């Protein structure tokens, strides 16, 4: 955790500094120069920097960093695949429609995680129809139907 904690501390400190750069432009209300919209964010920025430093100092003092478990490239690829597939989903769902896009997303993801083709196909169709039933039929949420109307 040692190295990661130092990096995390650095990120939080950077976030604190970033907040300061933003709040400089905030208007001050009332003629008397009382604090306004910037007060609370500035306080948070100070806390980010303070606790970020504390985290770095604490991590620095740790003598032996325990062996850090780094997930293998295949695992990381899985995670990136999840993010990418949702991004693509968002991009095409309005055009292609909810039913097809959802079933395809589920199928591809299950396949990627090592489920057999037949099982993936059956499971993805069942889950899609179930979600459709819950949201569209019972809760009456309008889902994107796309150019085919389904």
């Amino acid at each position: 955790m040692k190295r990661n904690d130092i990096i995390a501390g650095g990120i939080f400190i950077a976030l604190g500094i970033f907040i300061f750069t933003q709040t400089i432009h905030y208007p001050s209300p009332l003629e008397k120069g009382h604090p306004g919209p910037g007060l609370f964010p500035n306080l948070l920025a100070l806390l980010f920097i303070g606790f970020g430093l504390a985290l770095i100092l604490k991590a620095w003092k740790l003598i032996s960093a325990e062996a850090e478990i780094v997930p293998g490239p295949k695992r990381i690829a899985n995670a990136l695949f999840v993010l990418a597939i949702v991004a693509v989903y968002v991009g095409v769902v309005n055009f292609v429609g909810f039913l097809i896009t959802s079933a395809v997303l589920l199928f591809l993801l299950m396949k990627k995680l090592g489920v057999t083709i037949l099982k993936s196909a059956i499971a993805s169709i069942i889950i899609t129809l179930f979600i459709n039933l819950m949201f569209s039929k019972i809760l009456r949420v309008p889902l994107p139907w796309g150019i085919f109307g389904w």
Partner: protein
Amino acid sequence: MNPKVILVIIISAIYGLFVGAIPGLTATMAAALLIPFTFFMDPVPALVSIVTMSAMAIFAGDIPAALVRIPGTPSSAAYTQDSFELTKQGKGEMVLGVDVVFSAIGGLMGAVILMTSAPLLAEIAFKFTSFEYFWLAAMGLSATVMVSRGSQVKGALSMILGLYFSTVGVDITLGYPRFTFGVVELLNGVNFIPAMIGLFGVSEVIRSVMQGELAYPIARVRAEKIFSGMFKMFKRYKVNVLRSGLLGTFIGILPGAGADIAAWIAYAVSKRSSKEPEKYGAGSIEAIVDSGTANNACLAGDWVPALVFGIPGDSITAIVIGVLFMKGLRPGPMIFETQPEIVYAVYLSFILANLLMIPFGYLAIKASSQMLRVPRNILMPGILMFSVVGSFAINNTVFDVGVMLVMGIIGYFLEANGFPVAPVVLGIVLGPIVEKNFMMSMIKTDWDVTQFFTRPVSAILCIVTLFIWSFPLFAALLEKTKKKNNQ
């Protein structure tokens, strides 16, 4: 109580039992995934659903603890070792019996305390003004950090991050847009529901696909035998039950401390006062009685500050309060007069859920080996799909799916580096309460800060908050003197 509500109770119970029993799926995640549904329901069935689901999930977390040595939710982690050791000794039926029966008893005790203390506290809360609410929220934030497991510095950073998210959008004094970077969708702030689904649902999916399939041997038990000897057990440990029920509820009432903390503290207290402390960790049924009672009692306690002050007692009530705000309902003393049906719905569902826990718990234990064999590589894509559609459904915009994804990534990295995620939610919910009440108080008094310390109730709350802040200092001093005395 109409048939529709009863159906909601049954479905929520089954959902809670399933999610609780599957390791890695927590009660908070279950609540986050449930909100898109409850959002479209009336307030009463929505609250009934969340209460029932959470009570069942916290119990069901005990099942894999006993059968595969993995806690189903963090609330069962304290006594997982003891549960599994006893199962190895062939006493699995007894462990699961204790889990069901004492979870229900703990839950009922918590419910009774909730029903008696909340109306009394509401009387007091009527006199509260923005000064007192500021201190209450500050107290909640402090308690959240103090009780976070592991590093308190990390707990604090998680909470500050949550507070920061809450500042996004137009500010309350001048209506000035903060941290929106010109994005129109952010003017109303980070959308709460997609953020919750991301933090608790998507982050878990990411973690799970990086872990790969887990295969674990599942111990076998005969569900028919779980209730034998339970009456004797109750008679033997009635003092423990009373103590842990009270302790658990009290920890619940503390803003920010949830059922997992209650279980750990009850475990420690139990060990200290036990006649057989050597058994703790090697299979102590007393430990399971104590912490199993405490974590379910805590759930009801969590609702006391939530209903009375609108200050969440844990991450689940934080989610509930966030959703109630979105629906224009403000929890607080007023709802005891204006919308008593909401308060009674919470009371009644705690009583019902804990009574139903006995038969439903029995069925869940009977079905446990099937539930534990549900393949993750099918379940996780399903959860992802629910998360996407749920986030989309609230406002019908794909922007919210983006919010969910970003929060999912943040949640994953926090958790992977030992930062607790629950304080983020408490920060998001408490942030506006702290800021709004502070600014309102200041504008009312033309920036006379002394009012925060001179009003009588304010002064008391201030002292309590300062006491919480100084607690780690005291603990460190105590540790030092102890060491000196030992030398």
